[in-house]
């Protein structure tokens, strides 16, 4: 039930989108998604509702985080909320 699944928007029909999940297509409500979506966009879907448009630039930030975490004790890394000087 608590399962978030990413999918790709095929078509937008008002407040509903047809979304492709690796070949399975489902109608998904757009009532609570955080920003407008269009065909080709990736969205995170939860119990039939899109809850987030996954922007390509955010994807790049995630990959940069993986990169940073394999380095030994980086001074600053993406994702840090508060900057606390290391002692």
């Amino acid at each position, binding site marked *: *039930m*608590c*399962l*978030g699944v990413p999918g790709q928007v095929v078509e937008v029909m008002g407040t509903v989108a047809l979304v492709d999940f690796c070949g399975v297509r*489902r109608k998904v*409500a757009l*009532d*609570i*998604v*955080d920003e407008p979506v269009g065909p080709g966009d*990736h969205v*995170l879907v*939860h*119990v*039939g*509702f899109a*809850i*987030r448009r*996954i*922007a390509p630039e*955010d*994807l790049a*930030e*995630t*990959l940069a*985080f*993986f990169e940073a*975490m*394999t380095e*030994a*004790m980086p001074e600053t*890394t*993406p*994702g*840090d*909320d*508060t900057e*606390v000087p*290391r002692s």
Partner: protein
Amino acid sequence: MSAPLQFRDVARGRALQARLDALMAGAGRPVTVMHVCGSHEQAIARFGLRARFPEGLAVQMGPGCPVCVTDAPQIDACIALAEQGARILTYGDMLRVPGQAGSLEDARAAGARVEVIYAATQAVDIARAAGEPVVFFATGFETTAVATASILLGPDVPPNLFVLSAHKWVPAAMEVVARDPETGIEGYLAAGHAATITGYGLFQPFVERHRRPVVVAGFEPLDILSGLVRLVEHVLAGEAKVTNAFPRCVSREGNQRALEVLFRVFALGDGDWRGIAHVPEGELRLRPELAAHDAEVHFAAALGAAGPRLAPGADAADCRCGAIMTGRAQPTDCALFGARCRPESPVGACMISTEGVCRIWHEHGVGPRAVVGSARA
């Protein structure tokens, strides 16, 4: 390389594991952290991450399964409505959860109408086509609750649609764990999908209050490993801070549109979580403005006749779900695990749902050696 493979890249995974090993080798002491999401435990089990966790790193699953923590009297209330002729809709995991006298599956076998839905919008469609009262037994954390909220704010909500809310607010349970002096949790891996709604800024007051770091992580193997690296770094450096390790979905402020919908429909209230006890502000209750669709209001007389509430945590005497969900024990510490308590005949809350830690460990054959992370040769 396609996006899903980027998140499961084996070489990158090994590099992250090596980094985690090096951190723990340099730590010179055990570290205990907790995640609060059944999907995290499923990914840890499915990708075999637990067996490869370094020596001394304990990764506990906290109260991260909303099905498991749905209290027996709430199941009883739903069964009472089913037996009085209401048509019940719920998510599949809820069917087998035992109340004080049987489950919704048992009620269905005895003739009650209980149906499984996969999207909240189905409840509206079914109610619209039906003449009789339709009760949506709605469970889940904030990610799922926002879908329930959205259908109740939609145009032309069918007057025969009622919501019986067992929705829960997961930050409240983290608070209970953090305040328990016996748990010894040094850092938290927060659930990325719930944080997609709430934003990672939500954890800043928690971090300041308890001086424990929180890392928000996604659900692919590299998400979890990189999140754990960051979390262990924070723990060892004594840094009480929030890191967002899931930036492709989570922002500081979250999904404001969804939060607005959520809190127009629900308000936080106190309640009992199965196996854990009383959780202040852990329930998402329908606001009085939504009374026309609140099953607890509409069926108040029927529910009042359903009987007194059990004391919280009144499960089987030997069951250790409460200790497990608050980080004081692992499933393999429980004498019932895999013996009297099994997926086909669960005793405790954590064996019931596919998102419960006992169920996940049982299905993936996780044994005690993996707990201390020393399973590799």
